[in-house]
């Protein structure tokens, strides 16, 4: 799939990057991180403009996240009603989930941006619990700017060797997130006991 997407990036440049990052952030499991790294590598080679790759990537991701959030916020509960699944989403449960996200926005919204498989699910939860959009947007925006800048700079630095780095980046983020969560859990268990 990545090969086909890269062909589109070489053919249509920035609109292709926007569409791929948009749908990647919205819900589809697209390798948007690899596309951003490749786009930056093409920029180093003079085929594209690095600032435009970065801005397009951030804009596409933010638009995809916000679309997912608003779609679920406006129609999520109505769809659940039609599917007779509303009973699993009582007001108490939704409020409880919202207050947890509200308490830990960095852990939930910000860090989830680095895990392309998890971010759309977090958008759905934020939308269905009706987390205030301003709060969602702030942390989503900060997360996407950090994520896109980081991967674009990796692509820029490694240039034509981006393919090798791309193989390692997915595993690296799983390790980092699992490590952070483990530290959090250990701290919680140990300090609660004392």
């Amino acid at each position, binding site marked *: 799939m990545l*090969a*086909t997407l*890269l*062909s589109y990036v*070489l*053919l249509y440049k920035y609109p292709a990057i926007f569409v791929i990052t948009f749908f990647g952030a919205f819900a589809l499991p697209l390798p948007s991180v690899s596309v951003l790294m490749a786009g930056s590598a*093409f920029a*180093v*080679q*003079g*085929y594209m403009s690095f600032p435009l790759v970065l801005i397009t990537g951030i804009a596409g991701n933010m638009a995809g996240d916000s679309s997912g959030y608003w779609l679920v916020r406006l129609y999520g509960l109505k769809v659940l009603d039609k599917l007779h699944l509303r009973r699993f989403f009582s007001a108490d449960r939704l409020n409880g989930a919202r207050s947890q996200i509200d308490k830990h926005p960095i852990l939930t919204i910000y860090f989830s941006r680095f895990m392309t498989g998890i971010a759309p699910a977090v958008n759905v939860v934020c939308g269905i619990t009706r987390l205030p959009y301003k709060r969602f947007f702030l942390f989503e925006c900060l997360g996407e700017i950090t994520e896109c800048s980081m991967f674009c700079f990796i692509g820029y*630095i*490694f*240039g*034509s*060797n981006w393919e*090798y780095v791309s*193989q*390692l980046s997915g*595993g*690296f983020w*799983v*390790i980092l997130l*699992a*490590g952070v*969560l*483990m530290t959090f*859990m*250990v701290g*919680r*268990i140990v300090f609660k006991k004392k």
Partner: protein
Amino acid sequence: MNNQHKVKIILQWALLVILTGVLAVSLYIFVGKLETLRLHGYFRARFRHQITAQKITPDQIRDWMTFRYLNMVFGLPPAYLQTALNIKNIHYPNVSLEALAKQQNQNSAQILAKTVTAVKNFASKSVNP
């Protein structure tokens, strides 16, 4: 200690065990990939070509690349590959090697090999005109 508190503690320990498992498996896969790259000599090559990372070599040509991109990165004259590969596609150079192979009912590996050879020939002619 009431039942609800007990359940909460059990859940926390269960989550910790799951996270430890995820971390261990991820580390195992990550280190395995690093080892594979090391065995393929990637790290040695990486440092050797650090300064020229912005350039690609003919061996790095892939079938998803378009002819316009190849012309640009290798500094080829626009019609060079069209002539060398006898391309009659009207979309040239805005077509990928893979798409061209499909249109011409050829194996993309064949087109790729021909392109690599053509680019290498051009490079050797440029060095020794």
